[in-house]
C-alpha cells in the first residue's frame, strides 16, 4: 500500500513537471492550432440557446447550451463573445417517436435518439488566437476527435465572421 502511494505521488509529480515543462501550444509558432481536449465540467446544466435539425448525412437533432458568460453575451446581443465563453452543442440522432406518432395519429414527431457527439467552442483570445479566439472540441463517447478532424472546424466557422464564428442564434 505504501509503495503504491509513493508510486502515485511520483506519477502526480511527474505529470506536474511535464505540464510545467511543456510549452504552451497556443503560443508556440509553427505549431498546429490547439483544440479543446477536455469536456467542460457541468455543461449539461447550462442554459439553453437554441435547437437545430441537420438533415442529410448528419440527420441530427441538436441543442446548443451556453455557460453563463456565453448565455449573457447572447441575450445582451454583445459581440465578440468575451473570454471565458463556452458553447456546447449536444447532438443526437434524429429518430421518429413511435409513441408520439401513435397519439398524433400520423408520422410527424422526431426526438433525440442516441447521442452522436458533443462539441464545444471555448473562447480564449490569447490561447486560441490562431483560430479566431475560439478553441474547438469534439467528443464522441467521451473521446476527443483526432487532429485531422479537428482541423475542419475553424475553416467552416470562419464563414460566420459577422457573428464571431458562431452559427447559432439565441431563440427567445
Amino acid at each position: 500500500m505504501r509503495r503504491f502511494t509513493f508510486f502515485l505521488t511520483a506519477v502526480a509529480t511527474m505529470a506536474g513537471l511535464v505540464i510545467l515543462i511543456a510549452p504552451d501550444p497556443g503560443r508556440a509558432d509553427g505549431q498546429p492550432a490547439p483544440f479543446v481536449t477536455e469536456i467542460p465540467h457541468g455543461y449539461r446544466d447550462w442554459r439553453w440557446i437554441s435547437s437545430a435539425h441537420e438533415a442529410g448525412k448528419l440527420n441530427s437533432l441538436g441543442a446548443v447550451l451556453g455557460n453563463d458568460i456565453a448565455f449573457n453575451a447572447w441575450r445582451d446581443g454583445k459581440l465578440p463573445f468575451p473570454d471565458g465563453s463556452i458553447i456546447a452543442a449536444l447532438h443526437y440522432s434524429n429518430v421518429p417517436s413511435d409513441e408520439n406518432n401513435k397519439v398524433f395519429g400520423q408520422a410527424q414527431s422526431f426526438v433525440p435518439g442516441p447521442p452522436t457527439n458533443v462539441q464545444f467552442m471555448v473562447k480564449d483570445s490569447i490561447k486560441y488566437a490562431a483560430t479566431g479566439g475560439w478553441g474547438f472540441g469534439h467528443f464522441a463517447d467521451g473521446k476527443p476527435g483526432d487532429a485531422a478532424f479537428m482541423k475542419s472546424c475553424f475553416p467552416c466557422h470562419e464563414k460566420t465572421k459577422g457573428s464571431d464564428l458562431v452559427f447559432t442564434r439565441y431563440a427567445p
Partner: protein
Amino acid sequence: MKRIAYLLLALVALTGALVYMAHASGRSDEEADPIFGIKIPPGYRDWKLISVAHEEGNLNDLRALLGNDTAIKAYRDGKLPFPDGTIIARLAWSYVPSEENNKAFGRAQSFVAGPVTNVQFMVKDSKKYAATGGWGFAQFKDGKPDATAAPKTCFPCHEPAKARDFVFTQYAP
C-alpha cells in the same frame, strides 16, 4: 428589543422577496389561462434543458423542453410520478431553413428556430389538478393565454402517456 429586531428582519426579508418576485415576473398584469389558472412562470427561459424535438406536418416546428429544478431532478433521478411543484415548459418555433448555415455547408440541410409559435406549460399539483392526472396545462401565444379550446384537448392527448405520468418527453442525456 429582540422582538423588534426579529420584526425588522422579517420585514426586510419580505420586502426582498416581493421585490425579487416583481422583478422576476417582469409584469404583474400577466393573464392567467382561463381553464387551469396558470400564469407564465417567471424565469422559465433560464431553466435547464430536458430535450428537443421536431414536429413535422401541420405543426412544422422545432421545440425545446425546459424544466424547473424540481422537474430536472425528477427526470435525472428517474422518479415517477413527478412531485408537486414540477413545471415543464415546452417552447416552439417555426421550423425554418438556415440560408447562412446551408451556404457554409454547401448544401441545404440545416433547419433552425424561426419565429416563436407558442409556449406551453405543464404544472404538477396533485390536488388542484386531480381531475387531469395532477397536471394543469396552459398555452400562451405572444404572452397571452390561448383562449381557444386548445387547453381542453391537452389532457386527452397526454393520457396515453399515463405510464410516464402523462409526460411524453424523455430526458436527453
